[in-house]
């Protein structure tokens, strides 16, 4: 009986200690919230995993091509994970495809320019990237594949692209002409950034050409390169500038452009950030220059 009591009381003691520890720290964080403007508010830096198209493009645009993430970075392996984290973490900063950014998070201006479709098209908003399909030249010899390729440039496709919040880059496109005799099966795979709009494009194309089946799957830009190069898919989707070394036998077509939004928690007081500041946040080798707290940005 004694032992039993001892065990129970030990467990209770442990719980108490844990609770006390929790409390004392809560007090600390409350103090931080009551700021004292000088109280440092560390930035939680959120990034995507290596190989992600969004990451590759973002790092390249802010001038950190091929650099590693800063040490205390938190890596989320998908768009949804990034949004969830930023939504719940008041100290977070992250980058995310503009088409994905929801009203649950705050989109920052970059160098004073708002991340809008118009600003991406006229290139005043700097952080944007092309979303492309890559394919082998011979692919277009097939009628069905060529038709899909033409469809991607038609006004039908441009309308869907703009409706979804992506940036259409083809002005005055002609309407798609239906070829009644067409049949076949088209496989498209790759970047998860292009995937959602490609799914809509594919189903619209299928409704115009009922005998053609288009299957769209994800996997990331890496998969897009690999599948197009190996001929597994007729079209690979990539969300970065086409890198011919990754798929030597392929060529590319830019389907649309996508802005990368810099997002923070709704409670964050910051509205705008500069490219220079972004670089100092995301640069692993910034050293003394590194920005690690929100206070440094507010100034």
């Amino acid at each position, binding site marked *: *009986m*004694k*032992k*039993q009591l001892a*065990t129970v009381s030990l467990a209770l003691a442990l719980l108490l200690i844990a609770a006390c*520890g*929790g409390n004392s*720290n*809560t007090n600390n*964080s409350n103090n931080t919230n009551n700021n004292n403007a000088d109280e440092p508010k*560390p930035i*939680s830096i959120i990034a995507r*995993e*290596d*190989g*992600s198209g969004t990451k590759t493009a973002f790092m390249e645009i802010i001038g950190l091509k*091929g*650099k*590693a*993430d800063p*040490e*205390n*970075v*938190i*890596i*989320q*392996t998908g768009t949804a*994970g990034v949004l*969830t984290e930023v939504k*719940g*973490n008041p*100290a977070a900063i992250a980058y995310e495809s503009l088409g994905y950014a929801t009203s649950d998070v705050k989109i920052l201006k970059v160098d004073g320019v708002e991340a809008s479709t118009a600003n991406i098209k006229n290139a005043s908003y700097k952080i944007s990237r092309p979303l492309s399909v890559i394919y082998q030249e011979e692919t277009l010899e097939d009628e069905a594949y060529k038709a899909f390729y033409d469809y991607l440039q038609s006004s039908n496709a441009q309308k869907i692209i703009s409706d979804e919040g992506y940036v259409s880059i083809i002005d005055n496109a002609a309407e798609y002409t239906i070829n009644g005799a067409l049949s076949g099966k088209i496989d498209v795979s790759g970047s998860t950034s292009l995937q959602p709009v490609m799914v809509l494009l594919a189903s619209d194309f299928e409704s115009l050409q009922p005998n053609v089946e288009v299957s769209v799957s994800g*996997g*990331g*830009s*890496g*998969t897009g*390169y*690999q599948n197009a190069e190996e001929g597994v898919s007729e079209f690979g989707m990539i969300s970065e500038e086409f890198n011919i070394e*990754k798929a030597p036998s392929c060529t590319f077509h830019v389907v649309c452009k996508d802005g990368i939004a810099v997002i923070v928690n709704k409670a964050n007081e910051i509205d705008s950030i500069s490219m220079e500041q972004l670089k100092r946040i995301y640069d692993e080798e910034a050293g003394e220059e590194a920005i690690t707290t929100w206070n440094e940005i507010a100034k």
Partner: protein
Amino acid sequence: MTGKAYQYIKARDAVMRGIFLFCAAFSILALSCICVFLFANGLPFIAKTGISNFFGRKWHLSSGAYGILSMIAASFYVTALSTAIGVVIGLLTAISLYKFCPQKAVGPIRQMINLLAGIPSVIYGLFGLIVIVPYLRDHVSPNGIGYGILSASLVLAVMVLPTIVSVSLDSLNAVPGSYYEGALALGATKEQSVFKVMLPAAKSGVLAAVVLSIGRALGETMAVIMVIGGSPVMPKSLFQSVRTLTANIAMGATELSGDAATALVATGVVLFFFTMLLNISFSLLKGEANGER
């Protein structure tokens, strides 16, 4: 007539024997395929990059640094901490279910603990991501980071509970009741009999439970990836974004190509090596347990 029936039975036996042999061979075939895939891709890669690079501290794909030491360390810490938490809670649970709680409650409690084993790991990860990580971040963490070794260990500790409870309870139940009665007859209290007699007698079974849960914790991927943070740096704190071996493989598997993808296979080789060590020690412990009785 009888000759015909005999022939028929004989033929049927031969066919069935073939089918069973195929089934047995199939799992061996699967195992050897995976081994060949791992070693044929991974070992040449390790040889090519060099032991000092591959077991170095720096994982930086674009500059060709494939050091996985930080991930081995992170895997080690996460596994050790989660097993420690899991074993303390799980073993005490098993002991309480063994002699100290009302017999009527044992069945339902065991059922519920076993139910834990049936929850998909992604659900544990989601729970960790939405509940544990923000809680640690806001109330416990000294540096405002909820991700890291502690959150992963807490999630894993719950995941390994069913293994520890059921295996150690089974091994306690397997100890002959006469030991317990003998201890009581010699004047030992109930607690003394259980802790000093029954538990030592079930020692190897309990150790086996520990080894099994280490294996589970080491190999778990989905739940860990969601709460570990993922930065490939040496772990220095419980609240720091780090990356385990399994997380490293899963994070890059769909995105990387070329050498970087092969580096993931090589990471798999290291993981396979650790898992094999665990399996061997498990078999040894099991052999010892059977030998004792």
